[in-house]
């Protein structure tokens, strides 16, 4: 092996003849091709899968619903906790830090069990009873760790803005609230967006944990279907379908995040 081969390895890639195809297009093409091949060889299994498709779609809708609600609650809660963490008062800052530590270091599954078993199954308002379904409890179980992560993301973003920015704004005659609104927060959005999207992908993948407390989301629907049909080929195909659906939902988010990170890297 020529020694210059080793040296040029990572520094000068071979010149491209074809235009670069975005890897996301390659991936979706590869996944589609794999499913076409599967459909060709397992025609019968595919028709069974098609019959179960509405159930799976309903399951996936539940995953998306839980993840969107959890990230929304988590973002509002996290922004508040993050702001409290930065407060100088000891009686505010310390509990906020403890909250972040506890909910960031606990396994999400344990928090979902916690929310499911500790909250009541219905809430009483005067004489009316409102049901408190399991999927909302699972959403709370996911929103707690999400808020703790978001608090850290916000805190890091605000701290990463140099104090010179505050001073420069003051010298331009901006008030503190104007500085925060017009100078600091716009820069924070850029810094917060990539980790926030990563967190959303993580929360989306964690919604499958809700199946363990009896929420009929995608994984639980797939499990029910395999138990009903009870055929080896169907079991293989349906779990592959679940993997594919999550991949197609999460991979674009990760790619977009990576692109944003590169774009904002030196600003």
């Amino acid at each position, binding site marked *: 092996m020529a020694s210059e081969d080793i040296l040029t390895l990572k520094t000068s890639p071979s010149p491209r003849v074809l235009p670069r195809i975005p890897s996301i297009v390659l991936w979706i093409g590869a996944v589609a091709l794999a499913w076409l091949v599967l459909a060709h060889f397992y025609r019968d299994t595919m028709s069974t899968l098609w019959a179960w498709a509405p159930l799976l779609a309903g399951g996936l809708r539940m995953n998306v619903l839980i993840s969107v609600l959890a990230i929304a609650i988590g973002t509002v809660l996290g922004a508040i906790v993050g702001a409290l963490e930065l407060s100088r008062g000891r009686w505010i800052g310390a509990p906020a830090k403890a909250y972040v530590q506890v909910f960031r270091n606990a396994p999400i599954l344990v928090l979902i069990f916690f929310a499911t078993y500790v909250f009541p199954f219905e809430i009483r308002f005067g004489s009316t009873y409102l049901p408190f379904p399991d999927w909302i409890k699972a959403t709370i179980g996911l929103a707690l760790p999400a808020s703790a992560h978001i608090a850290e993301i916000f805190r890091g973003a605000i701290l990463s803005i140099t104090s010179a920015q505050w001073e420069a704004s003051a010298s331009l005659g901006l008030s503190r609230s104007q500085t925060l609104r017009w100078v600091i927060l716009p820069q924070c959005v850029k810094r917060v967006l990539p980790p926030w999207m990563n967190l959303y992908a993580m929360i989306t993948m964690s919604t499958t944990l809700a199946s363990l407390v009896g929420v009929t989301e995608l994984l639980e629907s797939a499990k029910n279907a395999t138990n009903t049909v009870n055929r080896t080929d169907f079991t293989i195909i349906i779990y592959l379908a679940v993997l594919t659906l999550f991949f197609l939902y*999460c991979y674009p988010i990760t790619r977009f995040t990576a692109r944003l990170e590169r774009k904002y890297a030196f600003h």
Partner: protein
Amino acid sequence: MSESWLPAFVAAARSVGLNYGFLLNAFERAAWIDGVVVSIELSALGIVSSLIVGMVIAAALTSGRPYLDRPARAFVELVRNTPTLVQIFCAFFVVNMLISQALGGPQNNPLTAYAWVVIVLSLHYGAYHAEALRAGIEAVPRAMRESAVSLGFSRREILTHVELPLAVRFAWPSLVNNMVDLVKATSLGSAIAVGEVTYASLMIWVNGDNVLELMIFILLVYAALTLLVAGLGTLVENRLRMPGYGQ
């Protein structure tokens, strides 16, 4: 174990409204302590094997050979963009079933649910380790590689003697972070009835009204384990520190 302090603890807890009565039941106590031991085993086995997997994948990712780095890249992307629980189910309900069928029945299959949790967590966190190590390998100064080439090192020797030792140091904080996540992910074993601490607690609280009490214990176990891993990580980091790198 000396049990004289246990009734005192249970009575003290009861006085503040917490029901730790299961600790006085020899069977439930033994089952719960077993669960803690299994969690520690899963974490230790997972950390060691995920590091090995991570190094192999990182070597493939930086090999510069398309037939190695493309499959490795595909594996990493697949693992990072699908839920861990779905991976565990795919391994246990699909791959394990196929192996059982090939061997002529589940009784001939040596792989248990316990083994599958270790395998899936090793592959999953191996992929995360590989990404960290790849970044570490790419951070190795070009002059290092050039000097190694001029000393007549082969490509494999450069990887094992020059790049990986440096890459492990550069990537160590991310590796420790992944290890902490791995410890937390051992709780997923409860999904396929591996008797780690979450599952053991689940088995106890279905018999009694003590969810909150066990939840506090579980969180303490995970806090202790993750702190231990993070602490050992810092110790190793200090031992590995070389003059000229870091602060």
